């Protein structure tokens, strides 16, 4: 996949601004999700991470700016072509349908023809997420963690080069969260672009090739985790002091608590 000379390859958001209900949720945000890397979108609640992800997925038109996919404006792309290029996994919410897990995963193949290749893609997605043993179970009877993996399998079944996932590990225990982040890394090593909204700073620092830090709808930083997730940035954006344990970033105290002299020692 190659763009024309000078055009950046990847899913590029250029100077995106967006208002919802009279509130500015994104202001002049530019970033690129590249093939072969895991990009983490981090920031406190309400920073605009999910809105940015939806704009990148083409699900919401920005008020200003544009999204370009490998040199092709997303707005000019047919919805069917976009569906084969970008897989989107929203935040898990609502009651899952009682359909069998295999059928739910197969929904990811709806943009395609419905041939044998679909069956292979479904099996691959279920193998990668460890959901094969669940294939006959109704989705409504799954635990939160199982459901999260099944919904990820649905998104992977599209086999799109770009995956956008909104808090995919929010409902997972540490072991499953680690395995999903490791899966994202391995997908990226195979040439995919994975953009993922994360609240877990430790996993973001460990598994993301780059992170984009959002603060009140603005991009406060974008780059390698160690360059972006500095102590000063964590204090400024998250209002927390962090400690670093073996390279992991651990939120430790509220900034206000520190300033009031109530820091607890361990």
């Amino acid at each position, binding site marked *: 996949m190659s763009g024309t000379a000078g055009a950046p390859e990847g899913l590029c958001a250029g100077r995106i601004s967006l208002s919802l209900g009279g509130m500015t949720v994104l202001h002049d945000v530019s970033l690129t999700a590249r093939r072969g890397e895991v990009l983490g979108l981090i920031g406190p609640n309400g920073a605009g991470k999910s809105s940015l992800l939806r704009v990148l997925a083409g699900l919401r038109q920005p008020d200003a700016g544009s999204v370009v996919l490998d040199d092709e404006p997303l707005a000019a792309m047919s919805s069917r072509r976009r569906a084969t290029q970008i897989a989107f996994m929203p935040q898990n919410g609502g009651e899952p349908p009682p359909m069998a897990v295999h059928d739910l995963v197969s929904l990811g193949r709806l*943009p395609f023809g419905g041939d044998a290749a679909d069956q292979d893609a479904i099996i691959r997605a279920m193998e990668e997420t460890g959901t094969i043993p669940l294939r006959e179970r109704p989705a409504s009877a799954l635990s939160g963690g199982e459901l999260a993996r099944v919904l990820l399998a649905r998104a992977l079944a599209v086999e799109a080069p770009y995956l956008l996932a909104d808090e995919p590990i929010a409902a997972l225990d540490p072991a499953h969260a680690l395995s999903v982040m490791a899966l994202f890394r391995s997908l990226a090593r195979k040439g995919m672009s994975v953009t993922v909204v994360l609240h877990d700073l430790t996993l973001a620092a460990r598994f993301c090739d780059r992170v984009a830090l959002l603060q009140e709808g603005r991009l406060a930083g974008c780059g390698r985790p160690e360059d972006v997730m500095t102590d000063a940035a964590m204090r400024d954006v998250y209002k927390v002091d962090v400690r670093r344990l073996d390279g992991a970033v651990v939120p430790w105290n509220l900034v206000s608590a520190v300033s009031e002299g109530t820091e607890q020692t361990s």
Partner: protein
Amino acid sequence: MTDRHPDRFLIAALSAGLVILFVCALLWGETSLDITDAFRDLLAGRHSIGAIILGQLRLPRALLAVLIGGTLGLSGAVLQGYLRNPLADPGLLGVSGGAALGAVVTFYTGLSARVALALPAGGLAGALFAVAALIGLVGQGGTMALLLAGAALTSFFAAMTSLTLNLMPSPYASFEIMHWLMGSLADRTMTHVWLCLPGIVAGGTLMFSVRRTLDALTLGEDVAESLGFRSSGLFGAQMRIVVGAALAVGSCVAVSGAIGFVGLVVPHLLRPLTGYRPGRLLVPSFLGGAMLLLFADGLARVIPTSSELHVGVLTALAGAPLFFWRVIRLKRTVT
């Protein structure tokens, strides 16, 4: 991997059941007749008693049962899939109320007594008016706008129907209206079939066109849109569902009166057999709805009562206990 298309067997079984019921509906009646002779006469254009009974009484009635029952089942399945609510029913669009009001107005003005087809034509006009009002009200709004617009239209048309009944000069006409509103397929002719057919075909085609969109919507509008299926917009799924269901159901109510519970019960019963895939539910729901109405109409014809039972009464009588049973089962599962 297990067979992923058990619905093929379901469709085959339902089709076979429908054919059997259809043949029974043609054979079944007060007058016994040689069906093969009657068919031969009908095809040859001979006006024998058998050909008249078959061609002008039994065939149109059976065809209407298939078309109307099928449409109600299909519309129920589409609306339940789109709204992701297993209790959605074609009646919630308000179009049945519009058709009923249109028909009642023809009673009120005396048109129905003077012109043979004024009643279904009035029903159709009322349904079309309701479709236009529904589209105007819903516009680009989402499912909540659709539900609210349907509720508003239903209560408005019900109030206007009550007002018309209230002002009706002749008590006999009020009685006639009450009977018509109960829903029946008695004394309908091939003209009624031709009258409702265009709306049913056009509406049914629109509803079938959203089959894959309904599957995509299972995980919400964001996932559906990311898979390339739009629900909003002029040619989006919502507009096709609203126009399709409203046209088809309005055309049905115009010729049969309001027949309840078919659109609610049939998809509800068949859903577990289609793996809870809303797109797979459409064809079985059409066939199941057609079967249910053919069967109910057959019962209406043979149950000995002083005046023939209305099929709408029978479907409601059969539907209510089913929901009682579902409530009891639900309580058992929960406790």
